[in-house]
């Protein structure tokens, strides 16, 4: 099939021009990629295809001869996935090469019907395969992106905050699943050791629903903390969640629960033998208070 390579290399410029023109009607995105950049990209792709066809069979896109071409397609598709092209646009980018390529083949092999058909068939199969490679790479990049975002979300969502000497707070945002609980647990226990904290307040204001599984995860964390000698207080139990917990028959009797983080903090301060007092009243407030008192006296 070296004839195909020959046709492409002889008509390279014309094919490229038609290719870019064809894309201009459909899938070109001037907002995402400049024309010069696109031109350069098309040039490398055509060169890679020629090299691939010359080196071996047009059918063996998975073979060694196509390594370079495959790499180029994968990297282009990956970069397009990151730039925000849709999968249709990325696939059409490769498939829109068909029209100019076929017209070049027709132009060259005008007299010979059989040979023309064979060459066109070879070209269409080749481009289909390349389009598949591109789509696959596109999907892989997106998948990678999703996994990374998931990890980032996981790391972001489990901060352990030190409220006071010996008192930690762990605000949980989002649903607790097994993987997250594991992370939350490890994070909390490590911080308990590092800061030598006797109390840990787990705030579940940001947990949308508490089912038996979430409750079990919470209890596991609390038990592990207790084994290390730290005491856990659950705070931020919303009325609906309290109802669900009772309806589900979850036993939280061994755990101290409070409605608000401030209540839990007050309890932790109290248990560690501390108290908060007001040293002086704020001036503005004091004035208001005295005027109020005067009014009442009147």
């Amino acid at each position: 099939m070296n004839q195909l390579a020959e046709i492409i290399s002889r008509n390279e410029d014309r094919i490229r021009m038609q290719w870019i023109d064809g894309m201009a009607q459909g899938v070109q995105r001037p907002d995402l990629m400049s024309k010069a950049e696109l031109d350069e990209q098309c040039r490398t792709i055509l060169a890679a295809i020629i090299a691939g066809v010359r080196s071996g069979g047009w059918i063996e896109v998975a073979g060694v001869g196509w390594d370079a071409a495959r790499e180029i397609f994968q990297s282009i598709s990956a970069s397009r996935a990151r730039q925000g092209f849709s999968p249709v646009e990325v696939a059409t980018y490769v498939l829109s090469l068909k029209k100019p390529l076929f017209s070049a083949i027709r132009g060259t092999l005008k007299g010979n019907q059989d040979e023309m058909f064979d060459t066109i068939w070879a070209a269409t199969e080749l481009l289909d395969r390349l389009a598949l490679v591109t789509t696959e790479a596109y999907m892989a990049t997106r998948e990678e992106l999703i996994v990374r975002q998931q990890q980032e979300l996981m790391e972001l969502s489990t901060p352990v905050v030190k409220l006071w000497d010996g008192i930690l707070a762990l605000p949980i945002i989002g649903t607790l699943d097994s993987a997250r609980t594991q992370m939350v647990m490890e994070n909390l226990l490590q911080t308990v050791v590092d800061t030598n904290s006797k109390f840990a307040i787990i705030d579940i204001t940001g947990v949308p629903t508490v089912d038996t599984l979430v409750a079990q995860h919470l209890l596991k964390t609390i038990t592990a903390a207790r084994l290390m000698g730290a005491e856990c207080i659950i705070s931020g139990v919303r009325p609906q969640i309290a109802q669900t917990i009772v309806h589900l028959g979850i036993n939280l009797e061994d755990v101290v629960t409070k409605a608000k983080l401030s209540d839990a903090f007050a309890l932790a301060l109290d248990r560690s033998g501390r108290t908060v007092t007001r040293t002086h009243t704020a001036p503005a407030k004091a004035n208001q208070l005295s005027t109020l008192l005067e009014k009442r006296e009147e």
Partner: protein
Amino acid sequence: MERIPVLRMGPLLLVTIQVDMHDKLALQLQDDITQRIADFGSTGVLIDISSLEVVDSFIGRMLANIAAMSRVLGAEAVVVGMQPAVAITLVELGMSLPGVRTALSVEAGMELLIGAVSRAAHGSEDERSQT
């Protein structure tokens, strides 16, 4: 034979586990601690496991047993310094050691024990004064 030392500090016993526990060692320790409590009339046992990195269900059960046995002999047992990984393992094994007192550090454990011991002493005085 390898043995974990059980040190006497006034009314308390101090045990520091610094080697990997195997079953025989654990049983030996159980024997030693109960024997010492009986010999010295100790009122508190502090077990420091901050160097213990590997536990299995047997060691977990042994910790629970030592605490229960101490209580039977009239001594409070406190386990201190459990590593996060050990705590997670025990929880995953389903062992929450409900009867065992715990503390973060040797210092905190000492405080807890001394508190318990003095309470016990006051309690017995109160009882005496009542009779």
